[in-house]
């Protein structure tokens, strides 16, 4: 990791007695794509708003580009934010919305026009320049909001659930576009999301938050495969948490273990794997791309397994062998 362009130290934000952000330490590297993942109320949005300057921290400090941000109001911070609802100015057309930030800086009109054209070309919305936001589709609005926040070339771009207002199909395409734009502009992105798939698919680094605390941070796959605790395992995706007598059934030691459903192999594929046993198939469901299989031990312990739709699914009611690699089970303290 290169030298951080933003440092957050022991940051705390309070709403009355509630600690919305609690002792968060975080370094943000130049040019990286960082995702803040957490359920609603985990403090991820508050942390983002604190960086933007909208929530005064109760304790700790935020440093951007070597400058302490304490007491620096939002309009003087070298960061820009893309809001969840986009917050486009309804009385301004697309070009004026995108150029808004440059006008505040007093940039010359010709220069503003040039840079707005450039920004619109980047996301192919040049033909919409004269439209008002209420005559744009969701995807178009999202692009306007992104370009409006990017045009001032901030040190840091903050994105609050940038894809949540889009429908599913559009989201996948927009996700690719967002990643491409981030690489192209080379600005550090900090994205807040509650969607694990989105966070893992987009980010260079993934930070998981819960109840105001930063639980784990690292490369997405590392966080996904080796969650530091039970909450991280649950927030980052589907997971079996096995503990107590169920753990003994699976030949695991004391404590709680996390096993991802897709790491559990069934039937012939289970042969030769160090952990596993026999179980009954009690339920089979399809999500389209995957089969979701629910297994039950004789004593009633449940495990869910996932396999690709291209594989032949087991028949409910039958008993079969299952197994998983030793490193598929990760110890997770509560």
């Amino acid at each position: 990791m290169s030298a951080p362009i933003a440092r957050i130290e022991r940051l705390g934000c309070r709403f009355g007695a509630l600690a919305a952000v609690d002792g968060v330490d975080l370094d943000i590297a130049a040019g990286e794509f960082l995702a803040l993942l957490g359920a609603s109320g985990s403090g991820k949005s508050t942390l983002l708003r604190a960086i933007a300057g909208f929530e005064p921290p109760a304790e700790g400090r935020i440093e951007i580009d070597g400058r302490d941000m304490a007491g620096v109001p939002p309009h003087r911070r070298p960061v820009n934010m893309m809001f969840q609802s986009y917050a486009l100015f309804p009385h301004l057309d697309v070009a004026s919305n995108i150029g808004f930030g440059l006008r505040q800086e007093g940039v010359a009109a010709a220069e503003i026009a040039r840079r707005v054209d450039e920004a619109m070309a980047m996301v192919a919305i040049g033909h919409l320049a004269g439209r008002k936001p209420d005559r744009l589709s969701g995807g178009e609005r999202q692009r306007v909001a992104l370009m409006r926040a990017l045009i001032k070339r901030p040190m840091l771009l903050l994105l609050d659930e940038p894809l949540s207002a889009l429908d599913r199909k559009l989201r996948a395409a927009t996700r690719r576009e967002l990643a491409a734009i981030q690489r192209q502009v080379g600005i550090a992105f900090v994205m807040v999301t509650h969607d694990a798939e989105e966070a893992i698919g987009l980010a260079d680094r993934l930070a998981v938050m819960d109840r105001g605390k930063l639980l784990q941070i690292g490369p997405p796959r590392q966080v996904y495969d080796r969650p530091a605790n039970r909450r991280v395992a649950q927030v980052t995706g589907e997971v079996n948490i096995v503990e107590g007598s169920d753990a003994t059934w699976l030949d695991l030691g004391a404590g709680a273990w996390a096993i991802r459903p897709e790491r559990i192999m069934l039937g012939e594929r289970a042969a030769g794997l160090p952990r596993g046993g026999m179980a009954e198939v009690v339920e089979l469901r399809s999500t389209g791309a995957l089969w979701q299989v629910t297994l039950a031990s004789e004593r009633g312990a449940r495990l869910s397994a996932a396999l690709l739709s291209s594989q032949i699914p087991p028949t409910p009611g039958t008993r079969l062998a299952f197994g998983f690699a030793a490193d598929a089970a990760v110890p997770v303290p509560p």
Partner: protein
Amino acid sequence: MKRGFAPVHGVALALGLVFLYAPIVLLAVYSFNESRLATLWGGWSLRWYRGLPENRALIEAAWTSLRIGIAAATLATAVGTLTGIALDRLGRFAGRWALGGLVALPLVLPEAILGLALLLTFIALGIERGQGTVILAHAVLAVGYVALVVQARLALIDPRLEEAARDLGCPPLKTLAVGPVPLLWPAIMAGWLLALVLSLDDLVLASFASGPGSTTLPMRIFSQARLGVTPEINAIATLLIGVVAATVLLASVLIKGTAGRR
């Protein structure tokens, strides 16, 4: 659920409309009365309207009313808009609750009491009564209306817009001008029109606060009516009703038109 229009509804509606508007219609009809006697029908005529321009006192009073109305409405709109913004956007500041109540108080306070209080204040401060004091009195009455209209509209405007403006480098005070104010214009205009109407048809406050040279139209009508109702008064009153109705209509179109749009 089906909503029929039963005869009983029609009767209730007719009775209600008659109760509300029969006196006004009567007044308007009699303003076209040929006869000099206000209560005796003598055929249709425009003679009282034609005669109006010659009634110097009445015309004078109408202009005074208009001048006072415009000044009072402008003053009330300036103060009321800022108050509405403060009530909706400044968060929980000390005295917010009290401010909200105090602004609304003139709306419910009996006008005679408000008028008396203003009169006492003007005397205590040694302010000479005239058009200026009537303007102040009407502004006091109208500030609450403007603040309420602006506040209601502002509550529908996403506060994230101001945050977005600030995030993009707009300093706090300017944020109001570029963020909500362009969206608030219809509400501000509606507030101004309501304030104008309040001032145009006020008699009580004007009577308390007026001095030499500040006889408003309602005051003139009232004093003439005490000497006997002439068709001329019917005519000027009909015109006043027309102006007020048109203004209120415009104001409600402004309020509705913006509330419907997101």
